[in-house]
């Protein structure tokens, strides 16, 4: 192995541009795979970021809402009842309403989120400043997407064209239906909602969705059934689902996963097959050379090691180039394009690409080892 590494190292030192030349195709394929995976990941997260920002086990909707966060209206007494169900550790409320955010003359569409502080409805991470607490008048926290538009802590923003609030904190990006979010105490949400939809008669007693944290060791599904049964006794029809299910029920998410997601998986399959074919071609290219070396006594294991190490260098180079290209593409595209690079996505793609390259390379090496040196040396150029 040492000798193989030394030989590959010498080869790279002799002609470093050769590796880059060979890495072009693989880099392009890796960039394609990374971009597509990042697109589907970002699209999903920008639809569901609101529910990902909190750390609840169960989401409570009123039955008529059919798991739609935007439609759900759970009566406040019902949510108090959830807190008393056996197995529920803590409960909070999250309510949303579409709004606009006015700042420095610009108007941005956003989702206004009313939430109970220090409950499962509170965002788990704060990037800067603090979160508003219940009852605090006219303050808000914005997510990183709004922060990037120039809204800073201490700035005043106008919600729904009429209500001025002060920004006291910034949380990580938590978009809902592709729109950035503003997090406010329930009272501010109720007031803004009432101004936007006077005819709907928003009241502080009619809330959005309930978020419940289940006690450690308790089965969330069983607790969900208990919540439904307990509230049914109070004539409240609710639907209680795991957070994962609520994420999938966000409008458009199922469709995105079923179409774009499946296409991206297909694309990754194609990229893997083409990358494997490319690696096979690379290993195959040195067949005659390896036959010559075997004819003069080189160890087949050493030659296989050299071929695979060369492919490893190729894979790492292509992956590094692809990470840079994908990052550059994400930085160059307008903010509206859902392309936010995340390390776990890149790691998955790099691993998949590595597996494909080594599978193709191993096949090529096997083919080379099975070749009779005399036959290879005697074949046409």
């Amino acid at each position: 192995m040492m000798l193989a590494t030394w030989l590959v190292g010498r080869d790279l030192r002799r002609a470093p541009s050769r590796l880059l030349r060979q890495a072009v195709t693989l880099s392009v394929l890796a960039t394609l795979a990374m971009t597509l995976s990042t697109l589907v990941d970002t699209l999903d997260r920008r639809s569901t970021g609101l529910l990902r920002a909190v750390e609840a086990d169960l989401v409570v909707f009123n039955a008529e809402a059919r798991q739609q966060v935007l439609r759900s209206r759970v009566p406040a007494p019902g949510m108090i009842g959830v807190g008393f169900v056996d197995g529920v550790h803590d409960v909070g409320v999250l309510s949303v309403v579409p709004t606009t955010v006015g700042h420095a003359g610009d108007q941005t569409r956003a989702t206004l989120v009313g939430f109970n502080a220090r409950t499962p409805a509170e965002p788990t991470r704060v990037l800067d400043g603090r979160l508003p607490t219940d009852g605090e008048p006219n303050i808000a926290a914005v997510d990183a997407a709004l922060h990037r538009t120039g809204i800073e802590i201490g700035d005043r923003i106008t919600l729904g064209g009429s209500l001025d609030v002060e920004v006291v904190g910034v949380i990580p990006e938590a978009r809902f239906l592709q729109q950035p979010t503003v997090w406010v105490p329930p009272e501010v949400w109720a007031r803004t909602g009432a101004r936007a939809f006077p005819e709907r008669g928003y009241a502080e007693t009619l809330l959005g969705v309930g978020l419940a944290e289940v006690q450690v060791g308790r089965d969330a599904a069983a607790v969900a059934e208990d919540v439904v049964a307990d509230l049914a006794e109070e004539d409240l029809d609710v639907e209680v689902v795991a957070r994962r299910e609520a994420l999938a029920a966000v409008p458009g998410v199922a469709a995105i996963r079923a179409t774009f997601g499946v296409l991206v998986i297909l694309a990754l399959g194609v990229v893997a097959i083409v990358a494997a074919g490319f690696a096979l071609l690379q290993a195959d290219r040195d067949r005659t050379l390896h036959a010559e070396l075997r004819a003069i006594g080189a160890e087949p294991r050493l030659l296989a090691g050299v071929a695979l190490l060369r492919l490893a260098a190729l894979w790492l180079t292509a992956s590094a180039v692809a990470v840079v290209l994908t990052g550059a593409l994400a930085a160059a595209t307008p903010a509206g394009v859902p392309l936010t690079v995340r390390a776990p996505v890149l790691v998955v793609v790099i691993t998949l690409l590595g597996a494909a390259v080594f599978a193709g390379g191993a096949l090529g090496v096997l083919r080379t080892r099975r070749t009779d040196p005399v036959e290879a040396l005697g074949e046409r150029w």
Partner: protein
Amino acid sequence: MATASTLAVRQLWRAPLRTAALAVALGSLIALVVAFAVVGDAQVRGLSGALEDNDADLWVLASGSEGALAASRVDPALLETVAAIDGVARVAPIGEVRVGMRIDGGRLVDASLWGIDPDNRAAPPIEVGRPPAQPGQAIADGADRHLGLVPGARVEVVDVAMPLEIVGLTEGRRFASIPTITVPYARWVEVVDGLNPDNDEVFPTAFALSTEPGSDPDRVAAAITAAVPALLAAPPATLAAQLPGIDGLRSSFGTAALVSLVAVAAATAAFTGLQVEQDRRMLATLRAIGASSRMLARVYQVRVALLVLLGALAASLLIGVAQTLSPPSIPIRLEPRILVAVAGATWAAAALAAGRSLRTIRDGDPADVLRAPA
């Protein structure tokens, strides 16, 4: 040219496995670009077709909804106010609600139930069957035929004892990528009232209006918003483009198709370059025994064109198979225009790469190449 073509065909014929592998690899990549372009378009239409292709001149939403149809509720008392605005010829309410339904007693599915009177310009056009003439009749979007939503089907809305009978089909008028059913507005009100028995009044989601001949819809829209600030009027196609998530989805599929196209072109070019590099010794030998470099270049270019053609054929085949096997949620179909454009771009990139690699062989001394180690 005939000699070059014959030689190129023979070269490909002599190595059938390699040719097939290259054609399939190329075909897969080309099919991928076509799929992203076609499915992206279908997906956007599935989410917003009910608005995008609507025939009404303007739709009026609650301005507080910020373009989210699910959040829009318009006070029906404002119908007369809007009707009185200069330039408005006719205005009628429209309702949309998400319901659970069973088709012919089957499994529970989510559906978008619309209330639009058949004589309203916003009503979806009938492609098969007839418009609803009675309250219990409905039309559905043809994209959900596979669920059994065909004329004669019986639909039960969950929690409401008002069965509906499908009497007609429309096309391209889906909403939120779920089965979309349209009933007369009065029946929609009854269904929503049945779902929310405690409500005092059912509010329409929007108004659809026709403008008087010769009047400017933009001016009418501005007049409506000026008269009633709680309302937002806009052409339905504009509202469709502004629906939450549409922009992101459109740009995602667009970016995916574009990046795939660049990748196809770049990968094909790189493969071609690699191929020429592999054949360097053979090409040098042929030149050493008198073959003209122009002839060799022609043979290569014909070979590249043939490979791309084979790739496009493989792509057509793959898309055809996908069209047959894919679930209705992935509406893949062959779009010849897109296929030709992608194949053209792929061929251009491959031809450029081959030309570049062949130039180095033409400019070099065959003896140097043959003296170099294999």
